[in-house]
């Protein structure tokens, strides 16, 4: 869709437009790295997906049709608050039923926040199969708008040759007891390799960068140019210089780069995947992807120079433009300990405290809306959705302890402040990256009523259950929001319940019999079976020894 440009002196509320998108999701074939043709999810027969570009205040309508034929789907708009429209958020099992093949769903919401976001499938680890793209919200009141001449969107991603359904069955499996995440085959910029961006000398560009990958964080740098960070995750920051940025999966950053004054050379810019979390780096894996700032087509495009080490920008020093005060004493505080462990199917799962996430039978939002007064009782949402009921406008403190040796990017909806750990306070973004084994304390101020997920945005850990559900002000939700008929019809057409607790019980919300559960825990120590086996073994040994003694005695003293 073409975006319309509004001039700053028109109040946006008058001229706010409705942008409609008709998305027919279906399979196509793609080969972005030139190495392998793979079955990829495209929209309207094309891949890469279109970038959604709207203006702050616009109404967005997405008509999604599932033309995949063999998988469910749904669409989530990462980072958008969906104030008053929680049902449009997109995660299946949370705010809607999944969209079955042949079904349609309409997402209809107003975007009231500026910045760089992205949209992606939110069903069963699906989006790395291709269903993700950038979502840009322009802002006529952008405090930095006079600092640049034009915008460029860059998406960074990892890329797998194998289908997610195959990779997931190999990942969560008895044959993978250590939970080693599959390693991607390459990295992409704008879903391709060797991207060439034409630039004009002397101009300043706003580069909006999104990591739309499944797993790999990327180090990003522009040779011969310095970046000035002006936005992270939808929050404007005071321009701060950086030469190398570390962008985890789902994070966004916008930087200003001023082009040089001569056109005699082109300059490479690179993304390099952080291989720390790769269980085993296969020989021959190229973790880098390169593009060029092309000042002139006549210049050659040099290969980037090797860096001796990565020394990324520390976002501790960023300051928000609106100079929001640090939050004071929390109203509600709880711990989330990140643990990986094996369950009785032999596979490795991820836990917050002692719960690994399993989708409920009724989407959490539908439970909240049908539970009446019980909606503030976390029991009704099920044990395995790991629910936390929060109140309106309170300061919530989450103490996040990473008991796993890996780095995890955690997605939470709000501007958070990290009060401890390496990334200390002040900057707000919705993707704090939790360093290993440190306590990170996040404080956030809840806003409008909604249901959202707090989860690790490494898609593999989403699949293995590193998710908690935040249920904010459910009683207010009941008063102000309703599920659109179309969404309810789509559930009913699949025979899925739209009311009731996490087990689908509409009569007794506290009765969770029948709720979805993960595989049971491994038995600790000896079970009955083990004791019986041990006793039998001891008995048969004693019998055998007695027989030997008898035989021996029969040969004595002759």
């Amino acid at each position, binding site marked *: 869709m073409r975006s319309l440009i509004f001039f700053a002196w028109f109040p946006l509320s008058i001229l706010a437009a409705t942008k409609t998108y008709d998305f027919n999701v279906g399979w196509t074939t793609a080969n972005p790295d030139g190495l392998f043709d793979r079955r990829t999810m495209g929209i309207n027969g094309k891949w890469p997906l279109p970038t959604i570009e709207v203006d702050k205040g616009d109404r967005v309508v997405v008509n999604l049709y599932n033309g995949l034929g063999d998988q469910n789907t749904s669409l989530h708009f990462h980072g958008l608050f969906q104030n008053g429209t929680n049902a449009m958020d997109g995660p299946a099992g949370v705010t809607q039923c999944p969209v079955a093949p042949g079904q349609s769903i309409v997402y209809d919401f107003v975007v009231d926040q500026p910045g760089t976001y992205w949209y992606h499938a939110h069903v069963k680890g699906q989006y790395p199969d291709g269903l993700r793209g950038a979502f840009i919200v322009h802002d006529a009141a952008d405090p930095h708008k006079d600092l640049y001449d034009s915008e460029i969107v860059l998406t960074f991603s990892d890329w797998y040759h194998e289908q997610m359904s195959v990779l997931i069955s190999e990942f969560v499996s*008895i*044959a*993978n*007891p*250590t939970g*080693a995440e599959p390693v991607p085959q390459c990295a992409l910029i704008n879903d391709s390799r060797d991207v060439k961006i034409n630039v004009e000398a002397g101009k300043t560009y706003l580069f909006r960068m999104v990591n739309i990958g499944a797993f790999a964080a990327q180090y990003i740098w522009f040779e011969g140019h310095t970046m000035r960070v002006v936005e992270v995750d939808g929050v404007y920051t005071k321009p701060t210089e950086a030469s190398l940025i570390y962008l985890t999966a789902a994070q966004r950053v916008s930087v200003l780069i001023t082009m040089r004054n001569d056109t005699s050379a082109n300059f490479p810019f690179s993304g390099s995947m952080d291989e720390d979390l790769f269980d085993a780096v296969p020989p021959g894996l190229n973790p880098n992807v390169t593009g060029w700032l092309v000042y002139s087509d006549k210049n050659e495009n040099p290969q980037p120079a090797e860096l001796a080490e990565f020394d990324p920008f520390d976002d501790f020093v960023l300051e928000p433009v609106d100079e929001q005060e640090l939050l004071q004493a929390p109203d509600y505080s709880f711990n989330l300990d990140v643990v990986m*462990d*094996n369950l*009785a*199917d*032999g596979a*490795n799962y991820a836990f917050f405290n002692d719960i690994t996430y399993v989708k409920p039978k009724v989407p959490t939002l539908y439970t909240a809306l049908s539970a009446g007064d019980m909606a503030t009782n976390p029991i009704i949402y099920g044990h395995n959705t790991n629910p936390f009921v929060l109140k309106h406008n309170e300061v919530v403190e989450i103490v996040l302890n990473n008991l796993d040796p890996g780095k995890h990017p955690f997605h939470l909806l709000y501007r958070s402040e990290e009060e401890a750990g390496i990334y200390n306070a002040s900057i707000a973004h919705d993707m704090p990256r939790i360093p290993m084994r440190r306590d990170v304390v996040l404080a956030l101020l809840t806003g409008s009523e909604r249901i959202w997920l707090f989860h690790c945005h490494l898609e593999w850990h989403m699949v293995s259950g590193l998710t908690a559900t935040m249920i904010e002000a459910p009683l207010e939700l009941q008063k102000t929001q309703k599920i659109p008929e179309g969404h309810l019809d789509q559930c009913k057409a699949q025979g899925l319940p739209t009311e009731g607790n996490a087990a689908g019980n509409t009569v007794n919300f506290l009765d969770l019999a029948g709720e979805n559960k993960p595989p049971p825990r*491994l*038995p600790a*120590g*000896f*079970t009955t*079976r*083990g*004791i019986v*086996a*041990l006793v*039998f*073994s001891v008995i*048969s*040994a004693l*019998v*055998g*020894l007695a*027989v*030997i*003694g*008898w*035989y*021996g*005695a*029969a*040969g*004595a*003293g*002759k």
Partner: protein
Amino acid sequence: MPRVFAVPVFFVVFRETLETGIVLSVLLSFLKQTVGGEENDPKVYKRLVRQVWFGALAGFFICLVLGGAFIGTFYSLGKDLWGGSEDLWEGIFCLIASIIITIMGAAILRLSKMQAKWSVKIAAALEAEKSKGLGAKARKYAMVLLPFITVLREGLEAVVFVGGVSLSEPPSAFPIPVITGLLAGAAVGWLIYKGGNTIKIQWFLIASTMVLYLVAAGLFSRAVWGFETWKYGRLVGGDVAETGTGPGSYDIRSSVWHVNCCSPVFNGGGGWSVFNALLGWQNSATYGSVISYNCYWIAVSLGFLTMLFHEKRGHYPFMKPSAASSLEGSDNGADKGIESEKGNILSVTQPARVEV
């Protein structure tokens, strides 16, 4: 403890030494009876005795050299070769060792039978040489050759058996059990020579056989466990070692019990690996390892009961007695010789005269 004392090695060496001791004692008694009497020349007797000892010690020495070389090379080459199929190889070796011990273990409980067997062999050997007419020289040194060959063969057997029994142990676990096994075997052999097959000795032999079969049962179970662990390791692709003894280090589908402690393998094993060596203990038991342990004991019990039956009745269960065996009667002693009160062989049915 297990790092310096491999229990199965001790028992194999003990048993082999004991059998060698028996052969020597038979030879020496034999000599004493035939050439050592007052009516014979004491010089001849002494010379023949020395010949026997010389042969025996020569055989022993060569055995040590060959055995040491064999085990040494096997170890230095082998450890590199096994690599990723380590569990498979360990399983195979444990199985071989278990079978060897099972078969050889019982014989020592019928010492007089062993003595009789050797008497016959020695007598037959001497007769053969005489009738083949190999000449004075061969006959002269028959008393050297016989013990030499016997000791050499028994010793190499011991070396191979020891190898089979203990290739999963570190090399440091060899010297002490070998030495103590030799000493114990020699001591018991000497006691038997002096005192005959007394009750006290028989009980000692029974006790040591019991331990030996416990070890063999453990090895059998461990072999099956090794095969299952190898299979799981191939499924997972090499990550198993990383997980230590916790979840993910074993296949939950075939697990009968698992405790996260007490592993005979992890971190050297400590006391648990002695428990494993003596009784086949695993901290993570599988259906295979438990069932095979029980089956082993059932099979061994049936085997011994069958042997008892045969001794008492002269035929195997469910089979008709043959005419010859019913004439022989009880098979329980030296049916070819007359025994003294102490159980030594006094004479054989085919006395051989030793020419000098």
